[in-house]
């Protein structure tokens, strides 16, 4: 199975809610589990790309760590049930509050899976173009992560893919590419972005 979304949450209403939001994403299989002990590890290991949606709660840190070290390419979405909940921000690629707009959650999932589709064509994905636009505008990895609701780790991984696809490594080079391709306008760029 190529693409999978696995939702692990004790609350059935949350599992079913997220599942129904994401069910329209094409060729992705969604499975839901109330806790970590019920997971089918064989199935998880077989997935090429895995989006894990779990409670953003320190209580599960150990289980998560074990799980993450035994599966392939994946991103981790932490769901915050309330503001006071304790969690480690850095552990997650995305951290979303329980009242997150549905659109944003769908964007996260689509962004993760779509990067796979055009890998060999050398064309940038929509998400990569967005990251490139923000690089060209002079943003740091941290700002890009905050703007796109993704982790800096994911930003770095996008940057790596962009560089590999375009054959352009430097920030000035990427900026010029973004202008040539009309991803940004020449007037949007500050003069020192090339130096």
């Amino acid at each position, binding site marked *: 199975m190529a693409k999978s979304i696995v939702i692990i949450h004790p609350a059935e209403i949350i599992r079913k809610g997220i599942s129904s939001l994401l069910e329209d994403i094409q060729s992705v299989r969604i499975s839901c589990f109330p806790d970590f002990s019920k997971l089918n590890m064989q199935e998880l290991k077989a997935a090429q790309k895995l989006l894990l949606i779990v409670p953003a709660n320190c209580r599960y840190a150990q289980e998560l760590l074990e799980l993450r070290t035994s599966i392939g390419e994946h991103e981790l979405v932490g769901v915050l049930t309330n503001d006071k909940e304790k969690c480690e921000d850095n552990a997650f690629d995305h951290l979303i509050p329980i009242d997150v707009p549905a659109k944003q959650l769908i964007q996260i999932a689509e962004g993760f899976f779509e990067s796979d589709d055009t890998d060999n064509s050398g064309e940038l994905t929509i998400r990569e173009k967005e990251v490139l636009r923000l690089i060209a505008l002079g943003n740091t990895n941290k700002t890009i992560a905050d703007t796109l609701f993704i982790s800096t780790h994911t930003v770095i991984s996008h940057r790596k893919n962009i560089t590999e696809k375009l054959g352009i*490594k*430097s920030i*000035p*080079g990427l*900026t*010029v590419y973004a202008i*040539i391709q009309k991803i940004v306008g020449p007037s949007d760029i500050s003069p020192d972005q090339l130096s």
Partner: protein
Amino acid sequence: MIQKRVKKSLRPTFIRVFLSLPKIWVMQVFSKNDKMVHLVQANHNLLPVIHRFGIRLGFGNKTVEELCFDYEINSDFFLAIVNTFHNKNFFPKDQLLAFSPLLLVDYLKKTHQYYVDYSLPRIEKLIHRLLMSTPKQNSEMQMIEKFYLAYKKKLLEHFDEEEQEVFPIVEKLVLHPDQVADKNFDANFEKEHEHVDFELDDLKNLILKYLVPEYDELICNKLMEEIYHFERDIHDHSRMEDAILIPQMTQLLRAAE
């Protein structure tokens, strides 16, 4: 049918293996008794290197050793530089480290001069002419020129830093080590050199992959030739600095302590 297909798919591998081996065996290393004209005939890119040593044309049939003697040049050093430039895989590190750092500094200064006086302005001019040959001087294409100008500015600053700070210290360390006040000078340009490499690579890719199709092809050919030539030259130059000059300098600093 199947057999045919297998054979066909294997062929490139065989050719590659076959071709790559003799390349190492027949690596051409020039010696003192070679005629100087033979060096240029074998690789015309060596002419600027020979000029950097102050040797002028009109070689006649003189050998490398004879001409080096005429021009009062250390022929071993000359050959080490020329052979390193000529062969990508030839880098006699120990031999190079054993020469006086003054010889190397002098050579590096002359290569800087060559870049500043010739390579960089020439590339700049050709990029501008290429740009003028695109329809309505395409505004996106203008960014390539801006990119190059920013790159050139950074490179000149880097040369300047080396000439103002690094080379004088090396000279002083050799000639008057007691006069060097700061013995903790930290010179490591590998990172900067890497950036220079990256941006030059980016320049090539931006032109090769993303230039608009309407342009003057003769100017473009010349430009690309010039960029590849410069890339090769500066790569060799950076390698001399990173692998020879900086270790020599570190050693001198340690000895002066």
